[in-house]
């Protein structure tokens, strides 16, 4: 059995991915979904508001709140 990839590179990358996923899991549903739809699906906040049937202002706020929390988590703040 051969080990694929460089373990020195792969393990920190996997740990980092886990850290980001855990941080995402701690957000509220709307904070997470608005961010993921914008970031991974490339939608504008207006498109996200149509998709989730929410006012655009709510989407702006949830995105911002979610990013504040993610930033705190990823920088090691509680």
């Amino acid at each position: 059995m051969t080990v694929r990839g460089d373990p020195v590179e792969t393990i920190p990358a996997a740990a980092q991915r886990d850290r980001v996923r855990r941080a995402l899991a701690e957000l509220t549903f709307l904070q997470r979904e608005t961010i993921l739809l914008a970031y991974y699906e490339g939608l504008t906040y207006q498109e996200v508001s149509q998709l989730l049937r929410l006012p655009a202002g709510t989407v702006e706020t949830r995105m911002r709140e979610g990013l504040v929390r993610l930033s705190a988590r990823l920088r090691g703040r509680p």
Partner: protein
Amino acid sequence: MTDAPDIHNLTGAYALDAMVAADRYAFEDHVVRCPTCTYEVREFREVAAHLAVAVARAPAAAVRERMLAGIEPSPKCPRRSTWLAIFRSLVGRRELWPLIGAVSVMAVLAFAGVAERSRPQRSRNPIGHEGART
């Protein structure tokens, strides 16, 4: 919408590049004059860089539906289309035509040879029948 009271709320959408061009320009006009927004945008861009690491997530429901819709119409049994594909690829290659022609001629000759050899056996039977009738 420039400098509306809630324009500070757009830092997240801006950092995630989730704005149409007109909104983005309006926000950029604001952000150069607002240190708080400048700081937040920088902070959120760092978060976005972290998100890129976790990119391999399960596809969203809409994406999954599109993927499944693409899968369903494909044939359950690919055998016939595989033979058809082989036939098409052979016919499509002009350099193979002489070979295909030669193989066809040999096949016809071989069939004719078999038919020729089996004819006496077959022709004996009618004679046998005729012999029985007479």
